[in-house]
């Protein structure tokens, strides 16, 4: 047990006076519990339009849960979330579906449809929501697969792919509709360093060329430093720190230091 007392600054103020007028995503006081376990506990977070925000935090702190709340895959217990000034809690299904079309979501476990081929997986959204012909859908799907470095896997089933390949196919599926927002849940975990870096470049390219707003959850610190405009650390159900890459590198916030140095001693504890 650590006997050292750490003094931690209070969580940063992450609220805007009028979230309904905020361009981007505003998360205010979101709480979520699963049974007795309080995962999110009054989380505040702002994501500005066009930025890449990297969310770091230890395993099991609720990063994936936070991402899912943004697109309402989970219903929050308390708090409010605005997307471009529109509050998503209590939104009607039809409108919610419209809003979701602006989003790409890379699941931590890829979540490919295992009864469909890779090409059908990637192209599904196009064939459902755009008037493109079958050939056009296929061409676009292959284009996206090439962007993540996958070739000649179009007609394979997901079960025939390695973990890292599934992850990349999931990424191709997330970007196929050229969404305005992309939520990445650990895009580079399970990838070799070279592929990881190519994925980093892709994330940066999407932001620069298409103006995509991204939230990236990752444990991969080199990748985080490379792609982030801003970083936020989630711990104990709250965002404990936000800052630019420079601020993260130089901060003396004990939690952030412990995390980026990968130290078993510190306010976060080891287990």
């Amino acid at each position: 047990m650590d006997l050292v007392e750490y003094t931690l600054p209070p969580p940063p103020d992450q609220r805007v006076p009028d979230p309904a007028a905020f361009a981007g995503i505003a998360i205010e006081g979101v709480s979520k519990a699963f049974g007795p376990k309080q995962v999110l506990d009054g989380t505040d977070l702002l994501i500005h339009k066009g930025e890449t925000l990297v969310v770091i935090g230890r395993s099991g702190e609720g990063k994936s849960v936070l991402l899912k709340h943004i697109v309402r895959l989970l219903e929050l217990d308390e708090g409010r979330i605005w997307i471009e000034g529109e509050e998503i809690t209590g939104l009607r299904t039809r409108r919610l579906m419209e809003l979701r079309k602006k989003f790409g979501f890379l699941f931590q476990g890829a979540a490919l449809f295992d009864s469909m081929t890779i090409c059908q997986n990637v192209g599904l959204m196009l064939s459902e929501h755009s008037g493109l012909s079958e050939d056009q859908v296929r061409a676009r799907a292959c284009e996206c697969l090439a962007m993540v470095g996958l070739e000649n896997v179009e007609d394979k089933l997901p079960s025939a792919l390695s973990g890292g390949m599934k992850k990349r196919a999931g990424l191709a599926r997330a970007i196929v509709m050229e969404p305005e927002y992309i939520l990445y849940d650990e895009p580079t975990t399970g990838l070799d360093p070279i592929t990881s870096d190519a994925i980093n470049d892709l994330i940066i390219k999407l932001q620069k060329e298409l103006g995509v707003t991204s939230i990236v959850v990752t444990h991969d610190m080199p990748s985080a430093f490379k792609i982030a405009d801003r970083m936020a650390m989630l711990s104990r159900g709250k965002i404990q720190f936000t800052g630019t890459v420079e601020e993260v590198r130089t901060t003396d916030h004990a939690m952030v230091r412990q995390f980026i140095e990968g130290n078993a001693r510190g306010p976060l504890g080891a287990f």
Partner: protein
Amino acid sequence: MPILVTNLGGLVLLALMHTGRGALLLRAIVVQLPHAWRMRHLIYEQMHVVAIGSMPLVLTTSVFVGAVTAVQAVYQMQAYVPMKFLGVMISKSVFIELGPVLTALVVGSRLCANYAAELGTMKVTEQLDAMNIMAIEPVRYLAMPRFVAAVLMIPTITILANGIAIFGGYLASVLTLDVTSSTFIEGLRLFYDPLDVIGGLIKSFIFGGIISLSGIFFGFNTEGGAEGVGRATMTAVVGSCLSILVADYLLAIVLFQIVFGR
């Protein structure tokens, strides 16, 4: 004793709760029915799932059901009832009861397990979430085609099963029971009432709905990994079978006593 009562009470409560939520699912599916034509390829795919592999099951079950009915009928009729009534007994019990109910139980369980396990796996591996986020409603894309396929295919298979069962009864009677072919066929024509067949098919149509709803409902509500999928599948099949038996009783009253009754 009190434990039994509370358990029973809990069970009834649970059943009612599920029925309520099942009704909501049914409504959600019905709302999506206008899309059925546009999504016919998915429906065909699911109809294929029902048909393929069900045939050996249907064939075996039906032949033996028909044959057993014949043997039992002959045993009960013995010397009291003329053998020309054999065909009537077999056809009436097959058309009204055995064909629809056994098809629903046997083919239906297989189908229900298929639906629950596949959708349950999709749920626990976040594939349903992925679909939702792609603005594709799982009820429209997954549930509706399965529901339509079951509602169309279960009666179709029942018709087939009816035919095979009658044939099985015929074979058993003629080959082993000393009933002549002409006596058997005369019996079939005697008291033939198309309402029997229609009533049986209405039943199996509703059974198709019950089977698919149970599989889809428990599949969509699966929690917790492989174990959860196993549990969901089991619950779905048990729920489907029990509901079929209860519904069979209610439908017997509604159809054959009230609607078709004099």
